[in-house]
């Protein structure tokens, strides 16, 4: 990444589900602390006014017609990033958990590591075990961290952190294929399988204000099993072959979307 900072196209992807009370503030905070980032809010089938609040703050909103889950939402964001030629994309959850003040910490790491880093995650635990999480979740996190560190031979301290920034290669990978239900852990494995590299920086996170965690307590056992299963299947698979990899034009990678045709059509109608 020898390109100077100012020339990079940077995007903040904000997945949000029923966060009408929070999403406006998140967008405003990103504006204030990282004004060089464009913002796209993925409204993942909210039943409240999340989309309207985000639009009112000037964010681009991609509103899913129904709920696809955090995996589908993030993939939508990465597709948008890829289609619009962004070099860097950072995930900032719409519930206000991730602090936009850390965006440039992640970006600095991505740039100093250069080609050595394709994704940087904000870790709550790296060097500072101060972030208080429920003991069950902490234990789960440690297990995943141990498994991932062993498998990928990279140090992973916070595999469930959604606060992560990807470069162009990461964006391309995730636009093509992104794990489904609880994707953070699997996404790290995908990076590894495609020989992309991960780094971490320490961040602090807010306790969730509005909304709920995407992982609820009774489901955490299911979550553990499902993710562990996904990890081992992922290892068996070595290089995951995404279902949608066949048609790159469906992703709008090669030729840009035929908006020209649309515009022509619109003009034809007008005249």
């Amino acid at each position, binding site marked *: 990444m020898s390109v100077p900072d100012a020339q990079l196209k940077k995007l903040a992807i904000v997945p949000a589900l029923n966060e009408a009370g929070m999403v406006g503030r998140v967008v405003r905070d990103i504006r204030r602390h990282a004004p060089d980032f464009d913002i796209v809010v993925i409204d993942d089938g909210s039943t409240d006014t999340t989309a309207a609040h985000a639009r009112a703050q000037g964010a681009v909103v991609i509103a899913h017609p129904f709920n696809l889950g955090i995996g589908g939402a993030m993939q939508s964001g990465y*597709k948008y990033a890829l289609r619009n030629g962004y070099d860097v994309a950072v995930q900032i959850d719409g519930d206000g958990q991730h602090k936009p003040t850390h965006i440039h910490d992640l970006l600095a790491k991505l740039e100093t590591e250069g080609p050595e880093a394709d994704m940087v995650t904000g870790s709550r635990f790296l060097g500072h075990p101060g972030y208080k999480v429920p003991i069950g979740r902490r234990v789960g996190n440690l297990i995943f961290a141990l498994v991932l560190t062993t498998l990928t031979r990279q140090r992973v301290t916070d595999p469930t952190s959604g606060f992560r920034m990807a470069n162009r290669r990461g964006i391309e990978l995730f636009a093509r294929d992104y794990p489904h239900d609880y994707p953070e852990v699997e996404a790290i494995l995908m990076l590894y399988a495609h020989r992309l590299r991960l780094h971490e920086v320490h961040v602090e996170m807010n306790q969730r204000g509005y909304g709920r965690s995407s992982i609820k307590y009774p489901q955490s056992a299911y979550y553990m099993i499902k993710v562990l299963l996904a990890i081992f299947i992922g290892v068996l698979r070595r290089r995951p072959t995404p279902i949608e990899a066949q048609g790159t034009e469906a992703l709008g990678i090669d030729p840009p979307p035929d908006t020209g045709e649309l*515009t022509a059509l619109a003009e034809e109608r007008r005249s």
Partner: protein
Amino acid sequence: MKRLVVIAGVAGALLPSIATAEEIKVVSGPDLNDAIVLAEPGDVIVLPAGAHLLTEGEALEEKNLTLRGAGEDVTVVIPSGGGEAFDDDGVSTERLTIGDPLQPAEESDAPDDDAGGAISGKAQVIALVATAGIFLFILELVRRRRLAERYAILWMGAGFALLVLSIWTGGLDVIADAMGIQEPANAIFLLAFALGFLLLLNLSVASSRLSEETKILAQEVARLDQELRAQQAQDAAPVAVEDGSEKT
């Protein structure tokens, strides 16, 4: 059908003066005894094919009834006791066989006829009608395009197998033998379970693919919606700038 017997019995009771013998049709094994209890002296009880267990031997003897079957070795009456009732002169039998009370009904029922199998005539008719119905229902679903052909083939295969087994009842024994399973019923349960399992797995695979396709569609719809809004905002831009406000 029981009601028919009851009606016949009631009719018999209401018209005691009329000497003509009533014909009472029996449908299955247990009904024979009901018919005997309800019959008037001298009545004729008509029995279909299959095995009928006789427990009301004394009443049969008392009322001097006639039992009429559908043919020798086709209708079999098995007396639960010693079968003394049939030694009485008043009791007559036509076109039926008296079975050996010590042998189970299945064994005494036409051992040389492979279509007889372990299933009674009534059960076979029910199985035939039910499986034929299922088969027709699947065909109808395909005809109305409610069921895609690729799934229809699977289900029609299953329906066809059922139909074959309900006609060729001896087939079960052959299959059980070939699988080394003693009880034909266990063989059919195992096969049905395996088939059901595979069909469900097939559906899970299909539904996984559908949800993946649905996800992509939803993402595309959301993208087009966003692009359309951007386009409209751009078209409306000159006005919006004059206002000094953004409109979406």
